């Protein structure tokens, strides 16, 4: 097996959640929070 084949095999072992980068997860988490605030599920965030 070549290095690239091994890399491909490794990649295909990943679950869909693992294929998403932390960068993308951060965006999704921020948008989820924004939507919860927008639709009144969370009304106030103190500081």
């Amino acid at each position, binding site marked *: 097996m070549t290095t690239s084949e091994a890399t491909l095999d490794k990649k295909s072992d990943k679950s869909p959640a693992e294929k998403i980068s932390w960068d993308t997860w951060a965006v999704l988490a921020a948008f989820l929070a924004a939507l919860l605030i927008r639709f009144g599920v969370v009304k106030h*965030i103190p500081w």
Partner: protein
Amino acid sequence: MSETLAIPQVKQVQVKQAQPNLQFLRVIPGILLLAAIGYAGKLLEQNVGKYAKSHHWIFPNIEYVLWAILLGLAISNTVGVPAIFRAGVATYEFWLKVGIVLLGARFLLGDVLKLGGVSLALVAIEITGAIAFMTLLGRLFHLKPKLTTLLAVGSAVCGVSAIIATQGAIDADEEDSSFAIAAILALGALALFTFPLIGHALHLSDHAYGLWAGLAVDNTAEASAAGALYSDAAGKLAVLAKTTRNAMIGFVVLAYAIYWAGQGQAKSVTNKAAFLWQKFPKFVLGFLLISVLATYHFFSKDQVTALANLSRWAFLLTFAGVGLRTNFREMRKQGLRPFAVGAIGEVVIAVFTLGLVIGAQKIWGW
């Protein structure tokens, strides 16, 4: 690379390999530690000043940002971060990106385009100058060419993320990458303390200082913290300027990948568009989208305040993480020459970008 200096992404992979199903649980202690340190910083900001005033002591007003970093530094450089917390502490970059995306609600699209346009012009000059200077400096100090490339990308674009992205693209050694990351992190830690002092000494406006911090401080977490240490408005601008720099990462890494492939020392890039998309920081898009939504009144005024406060909480965790992952003893072990090249380069880039910002300030009259 030592445990304390380990790259967050590497740590996450290690955690996944150990126990994939328990990964979520394993980050909880570290996240709680980040929250505890960040909140302690906030309480110290509120109470130390009051206590000093009630006892008629002269004590500078220290913001929560600095308290959180100092508490983290104290733990990391004395007792160290116990293994149980490390996976969670490594999530500080995740909170940074969440904070940046949410911060988009505080920028109207017009401001983003105007300030982003100015930032983009300054960033283009900064990246070109920084890469040329760091390459020259690496040659003068006889550093390995790929280590020079990593230091150049780290100081020109965006610190640790850029170094990691470039390492994979140009097939650089892990050791070179560790050297470059250690140098960039050590210099970022120094910038946290020196930049606000210089800014105050020069009486820079929030606008000018924020742009300068975003242009000159390399790692996004440190750039955001250096801006927030000056003022809230400066923190906002530092994040915007740094985000503009981050958006350039794909182009710079692609250029280096093509160069090293041409030298026969890296894999060639077949699909350039896919390469650019893969390296492009997605949180920049999230920031812009939230800004568009805020501009078109998708959020009410109270909701924008709530989003801004949530962004502050996310940054609070980030600043605690900046202190916790900085270990000066471990950085010293990485050797003097890459650090010397990085330090000389950073000082020159800081002076150069300060000149750019002061020039722009005179033109636009901030």
